[in-house]
């Protein structure tokens, strides 16, 4: 019996709850990845232990294909796990979770293939792997070294399951819209209309002038809020900046020349939020060491 999408989520939640993770719900501001949820982006900082799991609907406007491409989506789902500090048996825990999903490693080819993750907008990078299941990338597995341009100490590990990819394998479907969300209801039934409309909006309808205006306003509000010492509302505006940038970028409204500048502005805000957040712990950790290691290869 092949597991439907909904049961996959329930299974992963159950498994990681058993490992001591707090289960939280998706965050209610648009974002491109589960990492940007403040439950990860902010809470991996500071000296505290932190174990958490959640599903995150993630928007990538540039990947929108009007619901016509079998593999690409405006919005997909990530199942995000954060374990801080990273436990010794984290790979074994992960493989155990696959078994719960019905994937017996002995019947497949599972590999940990080098993939060094970075998100320049959020001043974040880490080392780890993409996990391959019979050649398909199903999970991003990262030891966070820096977030918000600050060292992550103790080191946290992030496991991000690409739920649609995993489901297409488990259910043996070629087209994402044919996936069973629950028995008798397909992924297409739930999301196809949204894919079409969001794509149409992103590529044809969005008001570029308004989006530029919003970007600037969100940026100003984020700064004003940080100045008031309020980290979480500021993070909301950073996320809005980031999503607005993604919409403008997908529309082709930002030239390659300007891109770096816009990404840099988001990164500055993200760093300010991260710095403001860690202030409460009175832990000052120089990040020069990490920077040096990161730059070594370049």
């Amino acid at each position: 019996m092949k597991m439907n999408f909904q049961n996959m989520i329930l299974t992963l939640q159950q498994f990681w709850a058993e490992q001591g993770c707090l289960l939280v719900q998706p965050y209610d501001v648009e974002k491109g990845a589960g990492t940007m949820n403040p439950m990860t982006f902010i809470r991996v900082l500071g000296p505290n232990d932190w174990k958490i799991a959640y599903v995150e609907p993630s928007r990538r406007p540039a990947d929108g294909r009007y619901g016509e491409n079998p593999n690409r989506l405006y919005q997909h789902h990530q199942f995000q796990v954060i374990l801080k500090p990273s436990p010794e048996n984290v790979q074994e825990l992960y493989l155990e979770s696959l078994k719960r999903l019905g994937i017996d490693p002995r019947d497949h080819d599972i590999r940990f293939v080098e993939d060094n993750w970075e998100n320049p907008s959020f001043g974040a990078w880490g080392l780890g792997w993409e996990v391959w299941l019979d050649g398909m990338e199903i999970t991003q597995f990262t030891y966070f070294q820096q977030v918000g341009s600050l060292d992550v100490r103790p080191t946290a590990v992030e496991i991000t399951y690409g739920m649609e990819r995993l489901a297409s394998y488990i259910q043996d479907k070629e087209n994402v819209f044919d996936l069973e969300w629950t028995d008798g209801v397909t992924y297409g039934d739930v999301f196809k209309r949204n894919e079409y409309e969001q794509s149409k909006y992103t590529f044809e309808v969005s008001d570029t002038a308004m989006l530029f205006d919003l970007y600037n306003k969100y940026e100003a509000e984020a700064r004003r809020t940080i100045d008031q010492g309020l980290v979480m509302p500021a993070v909301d505006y950073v996320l809005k900046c980031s999503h607005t940038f993604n919409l403008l970028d997908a529309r082709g409204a930002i030239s390659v020349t300007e891109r770096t500048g816009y990404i840099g502005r988001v990164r500055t805000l993200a760093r300010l939020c991260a710095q403001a957040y860690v202030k409460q712990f009175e832990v000052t950790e120089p990040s020069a060491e990490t920077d040096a290691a990161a730059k070594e290869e370049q």
Partner: protein
Amino acid sequence: MTTTRDFLLEIGTEEIPARFLPDVLAQMESKFAAWMEEMRLTYTSLKSYATPRRMALLVQGLQTNQADLEEEMKGPAKKAAQDAEGNWTKAAEGFARGQGVSTADLFFKELNGVPYVFANKKTVGRATQDLLEQGLEKWITSMHFPKHMRWGTHDLWFVRPIRWLVALFGDDVIPLSITGVESGCATYGHRFLSNTDYQHENGAYTIPSPTAYIETLRNAFVLVDQDERRELILKQIDALAQAHNANVEIDEDLLEEVVHLVEWPTALMGSFEEEFLDVPQEVLITSMREHQRYFPVLDKAGKLLPNFVTVRNGDDRSLDVVRRGNEKVLRARLSDARFFYEEDKKTPISENLKKLETVVYHEDLGTVAEKVRRVRSLAGKLGQKLVLTDAEQATLDRAAEIAKFDLTTQMVYEFTELQGIMGEKYAKLHGESEAVAKAIFEHYLPRNAGDILPATLPGTVLSIAEKVDTIVASFAIGLKVSGSQDPYGLRRQAAAVVTNLLHHNLSLNLGDLVDLALEGIAAQGVGKVAPEQVKQDVLDFFTLRLETLLQEQNVRYDVINAVLAVAKGDVLATVGRAKAMMNALTDERFLPAVESFKRSNNLAKKAEGTAVSEEYLQDDAEKALYKRVRAVEEAVQPLLSSRDYDAILNELFGLKADIDGFFDKVMVMAEDENVRRNRLNLLNAVIHNVRLVADFGEIVA
């Protein structure tokens, strides 16, 4: 009689990036060998092993004790070591104590006529086990990798988290503790195939002795010897190829990566839908190789088949499931590639060119479109210098204009390494001429040492223009190449320029190339460094490349210096001079001529010019030399334009007899100022001719 034991170190980790492992293997061997040398320990063999989850070192016949050491140690000078009465001073007593001897054992020896006090210091060799216990942790933690990380609560920077450690010296465990991991004699097998569960806490395998390492792991489904894995993979691939009556293309880099991605390889063949074969073969191969690490499969005629070979990290259980999974992934990849191809075909070249206006080439050098304009103008000027035909010039101009359009296609965005290759294909599809399309592909050539070279003249000139612009523009904004710092691959590009000039016998002077490139940079107002400085730096940079090139052609180092000491802007001439000089080395006239030229050169340095006035020529010998010099000058002129340096050298050797006669009969530093100046100038005229080939002062006789 020395006793020996075997030593095994295994560092068990989470998966190490495959691309790191070849260097890890070399590093472990050289680093351990250096350590043992420092410790005065010998061994009979040393070999390193690696898989994705372990780095290991097996040392056989390692001495169990250091040899005792007797060293003669130098102390203070005698006058500081003894007072006037011959009593030992505090300094001498301190020295003796430091060497573990009594003052009675001290003795004197003279160094450069000064007596010093000496002692024979004896160091008793220590047990290897102690040395390993003391030094091994640091040895491990100081290993170097391209990237390091931290994990958990630990402060160590290492390649990936350490999960177990084996350190065996004979039967004894060398105790280690790194990031909370204690060493022992237990290793762990294949994640999924080995005994019990894949939770390694339960799946340990005890290694009875260091030399049992490889067999112990074999029983745990790990082929730890990378050479064995490589052989097996090749054998399996060969068997698949035979069974399918096909050829599998083995790319060495890919093979090496695959060897380091698996612990227990099983190769399998999969297939994809034939309809994808409509997409250019290069695209399919790149997609399979870069994204999936698959080997492409060809028929006996070399045509791509709708198949691939992948190597599973495991045995043949459920191999069909694995095959189907891989086929499904590839299908999605190839659908993307086909989509890009179809979309790109719909986009006119002009539209792609427009996008280049917003693609930053370098923040100080503007957009790619601006670079294209510089290169186009430079290429045009080079074409004129080389007197290309109108048709060639037209091809060159159009190719230069659109050479970079494929950078904004979806395919090249996805697969950067297909730049130029897609440019040629798309250009043809959009109705450009064969010649233009070819030149677009060729302007990237050669991409590395040993790559194919551009065959057509427009392609060659465009390649030279593109690379010279890159080099000159980089220097003009202050980017420097030094040591391992060469982020834009300027060395490779300079070497490519030189190779292209030589391959097509192009008479382009490097100085002119730089001047023309600088014009383009000045016109766009992008340079920061003074143009004269840029020119000097770029020419020096090219000189270094020429030096390397000549070394690679086994030209003797003094000959290299000799030819580079004279004019070096003309690459063809420099190489021609070096070859002629190398040919002449075995000529019996060579060494005697060197002597005469050197002697002339020493005096010629005092000359003010090369003008010789016949009225001041007094002696027959100097008249003869003068006549000879004029004859040589005349003979050499036509040879210079054909760069026939063998013939020129032949003429120069003819000078020797008259030079020697001159020195025998003539007093150069004559009383009469006019006569003296004339003689010095005459020698300088000789040297002027000699330096058409080389500065013989550099030749080591």
